[in-house]
C-alpha cells in the first residue's frame, strides 16, 4: 500500500504548503494593504493641500471683492489723519460695516487697518480695541504693499485661516489700508473637507486638537505621535503613515503642516483613514467579498478540477492497492469455503493480502493432512470467514455426511474437500458436461429414479434457459436418508461443475450453493410431479456464452 501512503503524504504536504502559503499571502497582503493605504493617505494629503488652496483662494477673492467697500475705504483713509476725537466715530462706523460684512461672509474675525498698519476696527477677537499696530504681521505688510494673500494665525488657542486684500483709495492710486478676514477652523469645516476628501481630517495647534471629523478618541493620541515625528515633518513636509489605536479602532494618519504663520505654532493637519488590514489571516478572510469569489474573478474550474483529480488519484490508489486484492481474496476464500477451489491463489494477491492467502492455504493444507480434522473444516471456515462461509460450514457438515457413502461405492472417487475434482478439472472449457458420468456413481443413482428422454423444462431467472433432466436411477430402494445424502452430493457435484463452467465462460458472479441447490431441488420436485417421473437429470452446458443447467425428467 505504498502508493496510498505516498499519496497521503503528498496530499498532506500540499495541504500544509497551501496553509503556509495562505498565511504568508495574508501577511504579504496585509503589508501591501498598509502600503496601499499609506499611498492613499499621501494622495489624500496632496488632495487636501490642493483643496485647502482652492478653498482659501475663493476666500481671498471674496475678501478682495469686499475690500473695495466705500465705508472701509473712507474709514481706512481718514483714520490715520483723523483727530483723536474723530477716531472713535471712524472706528464705530467701520466696525459696524465689518460686522455686516462678517455676517454676509460667515467670517468670525475681521480687521480693517490703515496704511500704517494701525487697526481701524476689528470684529471678533478683542473687538473692543483699536489703534494698535499690526504692521509686523507678514499678511498685513503684504496687503499694505498691494498684495492679496493668505495666512494662518493662531489666536486665543484657535486656528484661523486668514485672507487679506488691500483697500485701494477711491482714485485707485494707492493703498489706504487693508481688510483682513479670518475663518476659524472648526469641526464643521473638517466635516466639509471630509465629505470631499473621503478621509477624516483633523487640525492641531500647539499640540492640541482644535477641530476634527473623526469623532474617535484615537485622535487625542496623535499629538504625541506628531511630536515624535517633528523632524520628519519639518524636513519632508509630512510624516510617514502613523498608526493610531483606540479601543477596537485602528487608524493610519499622515500629518502635514498648515501653511502660514501658524505653522510656527505647531499648527498641522492630519488625514486619517481606518486601518482595515489588522488581524492577519482572519481579517483577510473577513475581507473576502462576493466579487472575489465570483466565477469571473476566481479560478473555480481549475480548483475543482484539482480537487477531483486528487480524489480520483487517491481513490484509485486505494482501489488498486486495497479494494481489488481484498475482493480477490474474498472471492478466493469463498471458493475455498464452497469447495469450488482447493486453495487460495495467493500468487495473484498483492502485498499483505497475499500473505493472508498464504496463511489460509497453509491452514487448509494442514487440515487436509489431518483426516480427523476434516469434519471440522466447515466449522473452522465458518467461524473465521463470516456470513457467507457460515452457510458453507453448514453445508460442509452435510458433505461430511456424504463422504462415507461416496467412499463405500468406490465408483467415482470424491476428491478431498477443498480440492477440485479431477473429473471436473479435466473437462475442456466450454464443453457441455452431463451428470451421466458422475451420476453413474452412487451419487447419480441416488438422484435418478428413471431413465427417459423427457421434455426440457425452463428454470428460474438465475438458471434461465436451463432445462433439467434427471437420469433414472436404480437406487430407489435406498433409504431415505441415504438418498438425501446422495442427492446432496449430486447437487454439490453439479454446482461445482456449474461454477467451473461459469469461470471458463468468464462470468464473475457467484451463485450461492444453498440457493442453487434449493432451486434445483424445487425444480426436480416440480418436474417429478408434473411428469410423474421418478427422477430428474441435470446437465450443465453453455448457452450463448453463459453457463446453464438443463433439467430433464427421467421416467424409466
Amino acid at each position, binding site marked *: 500500500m505504498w502508493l496510498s501512503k505516498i499519496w497521503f503524504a503528498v496530499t498532506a504536504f500540499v495541504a500544509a504548503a497551501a496553509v503556509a502559503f495562505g498565511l504568508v499571502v495574508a501577511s504579504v497582503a496585509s503589508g501591501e494593504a498598509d502600503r496601499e493605504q499609506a499611498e492613499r493617505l499621501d494622495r489624500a494629503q496632496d488632495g487636501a493641500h490642493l483643496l485647502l488652496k482652492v478653498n*482659501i483662494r475663493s476666500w481671498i477673492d471674496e475678501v478682495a471683492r469686499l475690500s473695495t467697500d466705500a465705508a472701509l475705504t473712507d474709514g481706512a483713509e481718514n483714520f490715520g489723519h483723523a483727530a483723536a476725537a474723530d477716531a472713535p466715530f471712524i472706528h464705530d462706523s467701520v466696525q459696524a460695516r465689518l460686522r455686516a460684512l462678517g455676517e454676509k461672509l460667515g467670517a468670525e474675525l475681521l480687521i480693517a487697518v490703515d496704511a500704517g498698519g494701525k487697526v481701524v476696527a476689528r470684529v471678533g477677537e478683542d473687538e473692543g480695541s483699536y489703534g494698535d499696530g499690526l504692521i509686523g504681521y507678514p499678511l498685513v505688510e503684504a496687503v499694505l504693499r498691494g498684495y492679496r494673500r*493668505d495666512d494662518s494665525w493662531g489666536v486665543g488657542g484657535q486656528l484661523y485661516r486668514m485672507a487679506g486684500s488691500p483697500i485701494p483709495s477711491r482714485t485707485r492710486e494707492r493703498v489706504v489700508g487693508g481688510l483682513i478676514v479670518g475663518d476659524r477652523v472648526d469641526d464643521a469645516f473638517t466635516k466639509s473637507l471630509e465629505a470631499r476628501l473621503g478621509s477624516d481630517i483633523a487640525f492641531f495647534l500647539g499640540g492640541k486638537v482644535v477641530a476634527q471629523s473623526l469623532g474617535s478618541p484615537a485622535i487625542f493620541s496623535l499629538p504625541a505621535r506628531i511630536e515624535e515625528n517633528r523632524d520628519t515633518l519639518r524636513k519632508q513636509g509630512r510624516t510617514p503613515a502613523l498608526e493610531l489605536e483606540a479601543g477596537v479602532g485602528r487608524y493610519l494618519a499622515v500629518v502635514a503642516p498648515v501653511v502660514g504663520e501658524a505653522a510656527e505654532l505647531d499648527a498641522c493637519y492630519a488625514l486619517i483613514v481606518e486601518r482595515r488590514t489588522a488581524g492577519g489571516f482572519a481579517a483577510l478572510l473577513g475581507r473576502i467579498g462576493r466579487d472575489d469569489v465570483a466565477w469571473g474573478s476566481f479560478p473555480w474550474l481549475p480548483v475543482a478540477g484539482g480537487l477531483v483529480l486528487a480524489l480520483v488519484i487517491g481513490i484509485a490508489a486505494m482501489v488498486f492497492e486495497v479494494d481489488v486484492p481484498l475482493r480477490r481474496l474474498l472471492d478466493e476464500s469463498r471458493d475455498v469455503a464452497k469447495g469450488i477451489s482447493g486453495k487460495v491463489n495467493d500468487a495473484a494477491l498483492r502485498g499483505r493480502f497475499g500473505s493472508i492467502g498464504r496463511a489460509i492455504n497453509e491452514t487448509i493444507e494442514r487440515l487436509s493432512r489431518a483426516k480427523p480434522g476434516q469434519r471440522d473444516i466447515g466449522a473452522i471456515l465458518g467461524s473465521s470467514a463470516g456470513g457467507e462461509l457460515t452457510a458453507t460450514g453448514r453445508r460442509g457438515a452435510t458433505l461430511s455426511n456424504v463422504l462415507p457413502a461416496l467412499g463405500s461405492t468406490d465408483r467415482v472417487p470424491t476428491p478431498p474437500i477443498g480440492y477440485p475434482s479431477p473429473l471436473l478439472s479435466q473437462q475442456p472449457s466450454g464443453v457441455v458436461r452431463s451428470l451421466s458420468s458422475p451420476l453413474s456413481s452412487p451419487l447419480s443413482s441416488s438422484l435418478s429414479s428413471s431413465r427417459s428422454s423427457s421434455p426440457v423444462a425452463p428454470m428460474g431467472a438465475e438458471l434461465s434457459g436451463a432445462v433439467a433432466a434427471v437420469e433414472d436411477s436404480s437406487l430407489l430402494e435406498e433409504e431415505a436418508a441415504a438418498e438425501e445424502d446422495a442427492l446432496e452430493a449430486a447437487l454439490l457435484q453439479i454446482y461445482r461443475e456449474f461454477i467451473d463452467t461459469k469461470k471458463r465462460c468468464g462470468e464473475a458472479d457467484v451463485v450461492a450453493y444453498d440457493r442453487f441447490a434449493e432451486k434445483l431441488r424445487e425444480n426436480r420436485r416440480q418436474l417429478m410431479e408434473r411428469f410423474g417421473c421418478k427422477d430428474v437429470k441435470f446437465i450443465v452446458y453453455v448457452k450463448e456464452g453463459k453457463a446453464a443447467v438443463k433439467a430433464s425428467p427421467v421416467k424409466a
Partner: protein
Amino acid sequence: MRRPLILVGSALLAVVSEAAVVQGTVAIPEGFEAEIDTTPSMWLIENGLVPIAPPLEDPRTRMVVVLEGGEAAAAAGPSATVTLRDMRLDPRVLPVTVGTAVDFKNEDRSVHALYSPGDSRFAAQPQAPGGLRTHRFDRAGAYEIRCKEVPHVRGVVLVLAGGLFALPQSGGGFRLENVPAGTYTLRVWYAGDFIHTQAVEVGAGDAPSAQIDVTLAARKAAKTP
C-alpha cells in the same frame, strides 16, 4: 543657507583729521534682493488695481556698518534697548559690544515670550504688555531673537568684540563719530553675514569729517515672499 557673496566695493579713501566723524551712505544697486522676513503662503496675488509698493521697511535699516582695526574701539555701552511695538522688534537689528545689557520692552498690547534659539540662557519667558526684560550678552556673535507667542516677531542682537559700528538709517546714511586716525576695514553686516568689506584710511587733517560711499553688490535673497 546664504550663498557666498561676491562683493564689489568701491571705496573712497578719506583723509580726515584725528577723532574725525566718518559719514557715509550704503547704496543698494539694481539686482540687490532684500531678505523679506515673511512666512510662506499659498497665494500672493497682485491686486490688479493699485501698483505694488516696495517693502515698507528699507533693508538697509537692518544692516550694520562696522569699522574695524586702527585704534577704533567702542566701549561697551551700559545698556541698549529693543522695543516690542506693532508686533515687531524695534530695531530689528541691534549692534552691541560684548558685555552690553539689552533691555527688551514690551509696548505691545499682547503678551510676548522672547527667546534666543542659540542661547539657552535667554529662554522664553512670558512678558506682559509694559513689561521689561534685560539680558546681558557676554559673547560675540549674532543672536536671533524670536517670540514664542507671535512667530513673526524676529530680530537680531549682533554682539561685536570691538570696533566702531553704526546702523544705517532709511536711505542708507550712517555716521561714525570719534574715529581716530588710522587704517581701518569697513564691513557691512546683513542678514547673518558680512556682505561687504573695504579698506578705509582715516588720517590726520583739518577736515572734521569724511564721506564714505559704500556700494553693495547685487545679491539674491535666500527667502522670497
